[in-house]
């Protein structure tokens, strides 16, 4: 009886199956930022999915079964790389049983290879130093200059995988690069305002943002990357921040706020929570995201 019901359900499911979308190149990105870039340069020829949302810390993602299905059909997997997704992507990648997106295949693009990474350890990384990424800091997408290189790399890889669309990809990449450079020109005034301003950050995720905007990160709330703050560190941090004149704590929305709030209060300043990534599912573009972050910084710092 149960077997019969199950077979009926299966048949029904097959009949209801929606016709598969017209043959677009299927791209899966680990973060919404990468998804937004891929969508910008791929346009109508690609369908793009993001494995995480801006509300999620990309170090820790609870992937959904539907995403595994997407990954099993994917023709291109975009990863931030530099060990950012080490905790969850490999299982998903292997489990998807899709040879095209495995490590080393043309369908897997580690975008960290497209940019010059900051904070690349020069000595042997010791575990006592916290959650150091041996390949360098992976939070480069908060710098539009790095994003430009990534977008170009993605466009190039799309053209490789889908030669028929290569001219379209080139056109769109050109257009995206232009729009990004235009935006950067518009941002110039804001950047001048931010240059040299001291801030306290939560995690080492603002290194590229600071490098681009000229903000000076005095210290981090975390005593070591990935290690929750301890009382001694917080006391030292507050003293240092006062000495350097930093009053604002800046962090991505997904980081915990308890200690940050306390530190901001002690500094008689405020806690500024910037979005964790582009709101790709809500239709936001990467340029709009960077603009939003910069607006928040100029108003808040």
């Amino acid at each position, binding site marked *: 009886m149960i077997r019969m019901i199950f077979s009926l359900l299966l048949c029904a499911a097959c009949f209801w*199956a929606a016709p598969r979308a017209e043959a677009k190149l299927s791209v899966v990105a680990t973060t919404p930022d990468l998804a937004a870039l891929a969508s910008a340069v791929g346009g109508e020829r*690609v369908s793009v999915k993001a494995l995480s949302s801006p509300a999620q810390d990309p170090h820790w993602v609870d*992937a959904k079964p539907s995403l595994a299905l997407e990954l099993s059909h994917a023709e291109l997997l975009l990863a931030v790389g530099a060990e950012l997704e080490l905790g969850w992507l490999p299982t998903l990648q292997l489990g998807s049983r899709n040879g095209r997106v495995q490590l080393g295949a043309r369908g897997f693009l580690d975008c960290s290879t497209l940019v010059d990474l900051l904070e690349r350890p020069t000595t042997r990384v010791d575990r006592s130093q916290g959650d150091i990424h041996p390949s360098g800091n992976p939070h480069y997408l908060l710098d539009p200059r790095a994003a430009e290189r990534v977008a170009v790399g993605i466009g190039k890889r799309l053209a490789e995988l889908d030669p028929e669309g290569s001219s379209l990809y080139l056109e769109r*990449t050109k257009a995206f690069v232009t729009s990004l450079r235009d935006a950067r020109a518009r941002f110039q005034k804001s950047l001048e305002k931010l240059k040299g301003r001291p801030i306290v950050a939560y995690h080492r995720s603002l290194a590229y943002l600071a490098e681009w905007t000229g903000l000076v990160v005095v210290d981090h709330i975390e005593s070591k990357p990935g290690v929750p703050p301890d009382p001694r560190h917080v006391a030292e941090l507050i003293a240092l921040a006062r000495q350097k004149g930093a009053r604002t704590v800046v962090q991505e929305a997904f980081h915990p706020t308890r200690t940050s709030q306390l530190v901001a209060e002690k500094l008689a300043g405020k806690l500024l929570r910037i979005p964790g990534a582009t709101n790709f599912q809500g239709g936001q573009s990467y340029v709009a995201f960077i603009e939003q972050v910069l607006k928040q910084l100029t108003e808040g710092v």
Partner: protein
Amino acid sequence: MTEPAPSVRPELDAFDQLLETEPAETRGAASAASAKTVAHEAASGVEASPSLSQFVDGIGLYRDPIACAVLAGAGLGALGVFVVLRRAVFVTATLSQAAGLGVVLAFFLEIQCGLQLPPLACALTTTLACAFLLGVRPRRLSQETAVAFVYLAASALVVLLGARIAQEAHDVAAILFGTAVLVRPEDVLWVLGGTLSAAAMLAALTRPLLFAGFDRDGARVQGLPVRRLELAFWSVFALEVSVATRALGALPVFAFAVLPATAGLLCARRLPGVMAVAVAAGALSGGLGYLCAFLLELPVGASQAALAAALVPLAWMLRRARA
């Protein structure tokens, strides 16, 4: 697709040339094309919710995690009957914590002493050691106090040792709390092993275990090896908890060990009925929970736990309806 087709090579070079142009040249020249791009950028980002047919399409992909959840649900459901009857539900949480301690310990030993031990083996060892500790606790210590002691000691050690190995935090989490979305084939085998051990143990020991729980002193006087029986039970339970936690995560495992058994105890009056309901409810919440997570795009472990929880009031209503 290791090499691009020759015809597109000039195009590919054109991409590289994009980066060589000076940003200053384009400054302030906002073109119509770029505005259009920005507007269109995320158009394909809107997602339709997954359908049953997509699930059927991907069944090969989901076979392993569903098998894992069904097996763990059934095994823990059956073992859970005795756990709930012994008023020891928080033993599950304690054993999960002990497994965590094992994993952290494995990394710690590697860092501090250069000793390379498989984390899963360490997890299994600490879990079994804790189960043993709970089994041989001094009689003057109540079971809940012993459980709290082991839980607190393990939690504190996990945090203390964990602070020294932040770099492996991802690995610890991955090894300890599998994502439940996809599992590795060896996880299925481990869980299958755990569930088969549970089935074999219960087939041989259900009646003496029942007697030892119902009237401990009566069973001891009649010559039943009550301590060894309890040790056997908790060892198999510890094995099942550690392999299932590794594959599926702590939340669904805790839920499978408590809620299906509760449903069984609510709606059946004799042990065989209770066991049957608990096994079915555990397997159902594992399998159907996964399907719900797929269709509604929810986290897997929480969906399975929520479904198991929903079966409890259902069982209660069933009993009321029958009465």
